[in-house]
């Protein structure tokens, strides 16, 4: 205890000494402004003649209290005689006439490995009570996206562990894939599975995951963090959280802050995955701020730059060229629709920005198809280039069968009256749909997905009743893991399904079916 006190004193002494060394003898001129009005998280400021756009300023009283920290704010409006700034914190202690000081810095957040496993707010302040974040690296929240020559085509798959996605709508590292659907349909559950599935990746190849919760209930976020922590997925995950009661300015900043944290890893040549949950709330926050800053409203009262707000964010997701280290930042933005209306303003905007979308549908969800992915409306515009050869071989047949099934779906009710070939197609389709069902927290590694889909394509599941199919599949996968691990290993390491492996696999399946 005595030792501890002594150390604290030493520390203070050091600080004071340093301060005294830098001490200027004459008082210096500081640039200041004064708060003219404050309300709804927006302050109007007079003064600060040389302040620059998006600079951080600090609001404090004069004379200042020792026990209150200055409140940060970000300048967003530069007008002839006044400034508009958004308060990054609570505005209840700000009064008219308060002093505003320049910091000379644009808003930056801490980045680096020290953030892994942590829960922070968009300013990088820890929320998990695990002490301060020990990092010297800071990067600005708003950064420009990599240019054309710094990029490379998406060529590495991002394994999601969700059969329907990995097979039909594959995502590549560096891609931007939108997840869209109504509330309570499993959007967050889906991305949670994607994060957890990264445990199946070898550690050197495992992407760092950043989950950005925008305006969500803290209870939900806490539950998600617990699920991740229990499964050991927090070791490679950063959570940037803004609660529903936090100021809109923080909602607005959260995705940019999360993106910056991911970019640090991207620029170091690693892979990162950032999830924005969700961008419709982000658009609401930006609408609120813009209206309070008296910017002209456009369609649905969103400001004119709402498209640019999202496009500049998502453009920062990229696969970098080898010269730039070959890192990648994959973005999975989530957008919530109202009553399945994908043609609303924000959904269409984000659909057009991203490289594809995964559309979750209420009808499918209530029919028990979970994840409720509508394969017909979902696309991945660049991911198929990154799909592993093994998966490509089984997925092409699967997609064909499913497309044919969807065409015939209307006739399912009178399947008995149809000809044999059509009936077979319908039955195969029903089995495939059943096979694509997957419970939460049960991501499946690529090689197991491949063998399971291979068996279905080859018709080995055709004689199993639909209701028993999933049980049959899990038993089959157990059997493969116990008795034919070498086949799984070969697929995992070669990422291909060669003819030799195929025949070996066929033998394995036949021995399982006959037993």
């Amino acid at each position, binding site marked *: 205890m005595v030792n501890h006190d002594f150390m604290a004193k030493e520390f*203070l002494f050091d*600080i*004071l000494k*340093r*301060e005294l060394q830098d001490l200027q003898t004459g*008082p*210096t*001129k*500081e*640039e*200041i*402004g*004064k708060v*003219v009005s404050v309300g709804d998280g927006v302050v109007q400021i*007079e*003064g*600060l*003649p040389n302040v620059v756009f998006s600079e951080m300023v600090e609001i404090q009283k*004069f*004379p*200042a209290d*020792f026990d209150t*920290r200055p409140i940060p704010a970000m300048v967003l409006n530069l*007008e*002839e*005689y*006044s400034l508009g700034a958004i308060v990054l914190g609570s505005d209840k202690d700000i009064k008219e006439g308060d*002093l505003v000081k320049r910091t000379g810095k644009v808003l930056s957040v801490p980045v680096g490995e020290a953030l892994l496993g942590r829960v922070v707010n968009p300013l990088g302040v820890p929320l998990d009570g695990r002490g301060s974040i020990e990092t010297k690296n800071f990067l600005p929240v708003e950064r420009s996206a990599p240019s054309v020559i710094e990029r490379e085509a998406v060529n590495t798959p991002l394994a999601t562990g969700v059969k329907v996605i990995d097979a039909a709508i594959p995502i590549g590292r560096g891609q931007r894939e939108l997840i869209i659907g109504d509330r309570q349909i499993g959007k967050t559950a889906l991305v949670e599975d994607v994060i957890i599935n990264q445990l199946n990746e070898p550690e050197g190849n495992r992407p760092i995951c950043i989950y950005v919760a925008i305006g969500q209930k803290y209870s939900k976020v806490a539950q998600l963090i617990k699920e991740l922590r229990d499964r050991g997925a927090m070791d490679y995950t950063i959570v940037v959280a803004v609660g529903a009661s936090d100021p809109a300015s923080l909602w607005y900043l959260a995705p940019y802050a999360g993106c910056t944290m991911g970019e640090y890893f991207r620029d170091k040549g690693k892979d990162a995955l950032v999830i924005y949950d969700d961008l419709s709330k982000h658009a609401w926050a930006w609408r609120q701020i813009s209206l309070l800053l*008296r910017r002209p409203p456009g369609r649905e009262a969103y400001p004119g730059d709402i498209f640019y707000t999202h496009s500049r964010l998502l453009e920062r997701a990229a696969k970098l060229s080898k010269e730039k280290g070959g890192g990648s930042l994959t973005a999975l933005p989530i957008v919530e629709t109202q009553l399945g209306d994908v043609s609303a303003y924000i959904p269409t905007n984000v659909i057009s920005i991203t490289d594809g979308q995964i559309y979750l549908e209420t009808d499918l969800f209530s029919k028990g198809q979970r994840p409720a992915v509508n394969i017909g409306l979902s696309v991945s515009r660049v991911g198929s280039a990154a799909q592993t050869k093994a998966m490509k071989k089984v997925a092409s047949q699967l997609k064909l069968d499913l497309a044919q099934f969807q065409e015939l779906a209307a006739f399912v009710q009178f399947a008995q009256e149809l000809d044999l070939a059509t009936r077979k197609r319908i039955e195969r389709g029903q089995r495939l749909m059943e096979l694509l069902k997957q419970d939460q927290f049960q991501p499946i590694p690529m090689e197991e997905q491949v063998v399971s889909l291979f068996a279905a394509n080859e018709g080995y599941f055709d004689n199993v009743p639909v209701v028993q199919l999933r049980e049959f599949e899990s038993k089959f996968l157990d059997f493969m893991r116990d008795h034919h691990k070498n086949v799984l290993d070969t697929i995992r390491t070669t990422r291909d399904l060669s003819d030799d492996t195929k025949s070996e696999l066929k033998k394995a399946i036949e021995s399982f079916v006959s037993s």
Partner: protein
Amino acid sequence: MQNKARMYARVLLDSLEGKPPAGIEKIAQKFKHLLKKRGDLRLMSQIIRELKAFQGEKEGKRAQVISAFALAEDAKLVLQKSLKQRGFRMEEKVEPKLIGGTAIFLEKEFLVDGTVRGRLQRIAQLVKS
């Protein structure tokens, strides 16, 4: 919006100029009615601010000197002289909370903080961070 308030303030100032104190109240009343008629009553506080700013401009640049104790006569003279050279008119204020030293506000744009409290504040921030 700012310019609108400024315009009103300029008009009010012009119409008030050279009027006897008795007439001022009448004009102010009329001005209020005018604002109401034009639906600009909510601009009142901005107009008053602009009016004050115009008034300030007329009187020259303002330097507010805030000190912990009343300034000594000789110090005051020196300050007054050097501020005048830079075109500032000095105003004094005593604020015991500053502990010691003086802070000078030059208009609304600059602050020269030479107070003990300001310096302590800086050290406090260093220790906290």
